[in-house]
């Protein structure tokens, strides 16, 4: 067959090559960073945009979805309107005091951000890259994680914004850190943000990533967060990506590395919007660590949301949990791919993965691919995946008690999704997430 014949570069791929040549000089970073960018771009160039031929992208064809490649967003001009916008678009989460870090088009804007508490250092990506400190560059590139992923390589090549958060060893950060990403609504552009959260030994922190987009145009986002959790540290993480215009593309990567006895709990709420790929790589480097990845996706119209996980158990005695819920309406497509790899020697691994989906429409599609790859014998690993529709009996039960059908369905769907949001530790954050899901459901009722 023609499989080995490399097709000519697509228009978007050619644009990316031109864009890299154009922007390369203005992208931040000292010499070693430049070399990192070049190597990453070469890797991207030889692989091209991911297609369904790439097994890790079995259900998402980014090459098809990206008809065009937009120029890298320029640094925003700080002006008063941004502050108003921030207040309007990202009101405080009820009952939750947070330390806010504000990014506009991926760029960290210190003027809009709160002062960070003791033990927490925040640096703009450009500043950190300019120093080019070797240890930092290594931490940012998370070696061994997501290798061969062309979308991640693209992020490394183009990373233009982002923030570096360092939490000193032993620091218990009381207030959650809230990263708020806004878009400047300038002409159509691409945002390549790369952030790093380094949590020192025994430290504790909660990071909430909230994104808002009011852009009227198509956007292309490629966002990556590297989380390095040192021994005995504990990290809670919540990510609410922006709802982009349809035909937008968004690749959001999370790379988490856990030390011994560390704990990491991450939750993602996807509310649709164009094509969104959430890819998470989590690796257990130290023994007795616990990692949990959870999420909910609520999709409608032609939303395409792909959740792809790779969990690598390298060290023994670790526990991983993955728990995802998907609700699909309209002509949406949901994808869950979860891969748990237990390396030789990672004995006593305890892994459990679940993906549940409800289809509300005959035009919606759900694809599940939960994988296990196991090279150690003394392990307990399992996965479960279900796809179904709302239980008619339950709907009937609620309706028999006087609830109109849309209300009954919303109630059941809320309960279905709640099982995932329940995995978020902080109650105010849970309430906030539930309110977002409630908004989505109410729009369903209105339609």
């Amino acid at each position, binding site marked *: *067959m023609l499989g*080995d014949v490399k097709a000519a570069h697509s228009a978007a791929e050619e644009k990316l090559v031109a864009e890299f040549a154009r922007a390369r000089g203005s992208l931040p970073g000292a010499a070693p960073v430049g070399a990192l960018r070049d190597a990453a771009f070469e890797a991207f160039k030889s692989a091209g945009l991911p297609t369904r031929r790439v097994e890790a992208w079995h259900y998402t064809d980014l090459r098809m979805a990206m008809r065009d490649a937009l120029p890298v967003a320029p640094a925003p001009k700080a002006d008063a309107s941004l502050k108003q916008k921030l207040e309007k678009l990202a009101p405080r989460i009820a009952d939750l005091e947070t330390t806010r870090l504000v990014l506009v088009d991926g760029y960290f804007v210190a003027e809009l951000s709160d002062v960070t508490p003791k033990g927490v250092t925040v640096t703009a990506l450009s500043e950190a890259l300019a120093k080019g400190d070797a240890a930092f560059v290594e931490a940012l590139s998370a070696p061994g994680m997501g290798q061969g992923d062309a979308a991640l390589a693209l992020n490394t090549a183009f990373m233009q914004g982002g923030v570096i958060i360092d939490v000193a060893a032993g620091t218990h950060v009381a207030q959650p850190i809230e990263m708020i990403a806004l878009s400047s609504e300038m002409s159509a552009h691409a945002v390549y943000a790369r952030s790093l959260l380094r949590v020192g030994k025994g430290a504790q922190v909660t990071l909430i990533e909230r994104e808002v987009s009011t852009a009227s145009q198509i956007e292309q986002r490629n966002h990556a967060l590297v989380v390095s959790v040192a021994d005995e540290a504990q990290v809670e993480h919540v990510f609410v990506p922006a709802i982009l215009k349809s035909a937008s593309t968004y690749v959001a990567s999370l790379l988490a590395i856990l030390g011994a006895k560390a704990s990491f709990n991450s939750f993602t709420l996807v509310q649709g919007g164009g094509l969104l790929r959430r890819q998470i790589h989590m690796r257990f480097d130290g023994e007795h660590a616990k990692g949990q990845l959870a999420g909910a996706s609520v999709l409608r119209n032609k939303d395409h949301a792909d959740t792809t996980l790779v969990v690598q158990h390298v060290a023994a005695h670790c526990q991983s949990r993955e728990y995802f819920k998907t609700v699909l309406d309209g002509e949406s497509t949901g994808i869950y791919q979860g891969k748990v790899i237990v390396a030789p020697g990672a004995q006593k691994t305890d892994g459990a993965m679940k993906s549940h*989906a409800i289809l509300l429409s005959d035009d919606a599609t*759900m694809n*599940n691919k*939960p994988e*296990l*790859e196991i090279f150690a014998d*003394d392990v307990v690993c399992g996965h*479960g995946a279900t796809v179904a529709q709302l239980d008619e009996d339950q709907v009937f039960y609620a309706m028999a008690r006087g609830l109109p059908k849309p209300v009954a369905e919303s109630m059941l769907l809320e309960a279905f999704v709640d099982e995932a949001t329940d995995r978020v530790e902080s109650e105010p954050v849970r309430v906030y997430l539930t309110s977002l899901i409630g908004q989505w459901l109410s729009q369903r009722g209105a339609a």
Partner: protein
Amino acid sequence: MAAVQETVDRVKSVDVDAYKYGFVSDIESEKAPKGLNEDIVRFISAKKNEPAWLTEWRLEAYRLWLTMREPDWARVDYPKINYQDLYYYSAPKSTPGPKNIDEVDPELLRVYEKLGIPLREQEILAGVQERRVAVDAVFDSVSVATTFKAELAKAGVIFCPISEAVHTHPELVKKYLGSVVPTSDNYYATLNSAVFSDGSFVYIPPGVRCPMELSTYFRINEQNTGQFERTLIIADKGSYVSYLEGCTAPKRDENQLHAAVVELITLDDAEIKYSTVQNWYPGDADGKGGIYNFVTKRGDCRGARSKISWTQVETGSAITWKYPSCILRGDESRGEFYSIAISNGRQQVDSGTKMIHLGKNTTSRIISKGISAGRSNNTYRGQVLAQKRATNARNFTNCDSLLIGETCGAHTIPYIEAKNASAVFEHEATTSKISEDQLFYCMQRGLSAEEATALIVNGFVRDVLQQLPMEFAVEAQKLISISLEGSVG
């Protein structure tokens, strides 16, 4: 079962080298020259006096094959096969078309004996008329003995070598051959279409319940001979048939290629139950030798309320690449897949199933049990798909893996795709080693570690063993124990 117990204690003690069935029998065979080209395809076709349409069909497949690439997505690793270094045809030298058992080469019968074909079947071959199993024995490439023809004929069942069916029932062969696995299907199936040697042809007429279980023993015999079986089973409206397939092969140094194609077709209300016990030579302790088993098996539930059930016990072969599938086209049709795949030594197994739900109210069930020991890798790869039209499609999948020893691997790669809101798919998979608690519980009651392990492994595969016809269940248990020998220390 005792098998499990044996399994446990023998897994390690089993010297993988000591393959019980590794012998080469000296039967002269008639071979085509090495290599593959259009002339060889024509030679094979001519050897069988095939009609022109079939020769053309083969040549078309061959030409297509030349444009195809060997698939590389499976989790298996082997040196590249030189397709020009294989023989594509070899027929045992024996009187043409033996009418009865006496005409069969006694050497063949001795081979069956060594293979441990159940006594009852040997009796059949020896002419004892009590048996209720019909054996269409495939020795290397040509069917040499077919029994019970008369009784089957009384019921109207056609059970004969496909090479014969081409002549006696050309309309059926022409209508159904390649209709489930088209010549363009995949690399190995296409190769098979071009060079298939022989295989079984079964046709069950409407409303007939096949009076006996049909059975075929495959045997790869001639050195360097690829075995390209082609099986075609058609169950017409309201009929039922149970078909058994079992295989063992002599020991070899060269890797042998086996690329069979099995096509099943059920019309309205028909049912086919297809059972396989596969025990080809798995290679020695270093993975040298052993059979490459690249098989395409697919069933098409064409009629409403029809059913196809695959049951397999896979213990042999160096490499297994096999996905018995069901296309659930008819409304309310049902597909089942029950599998035990055992890998030991350096075996590599990449096996599973596909359930393609096309019709309304279709159901499917997958039970897969993988056991890895030694330095082997065992992968379950399965797809469950509900197309948009497949209202109320229902699937339940359970795949469990058991690891024995820390140098083996067990992998699960399911693809679950629902394009219909009323589809209900459930999938669960677990991977574990034998539970310490269970072992402790058994040992506390006086069983040795080995007996306890055996008991647990036995229980682990029970769901699937129960699906096998009686004759096979016994053989399968034996095989399981043999293939796990030496894996538990």
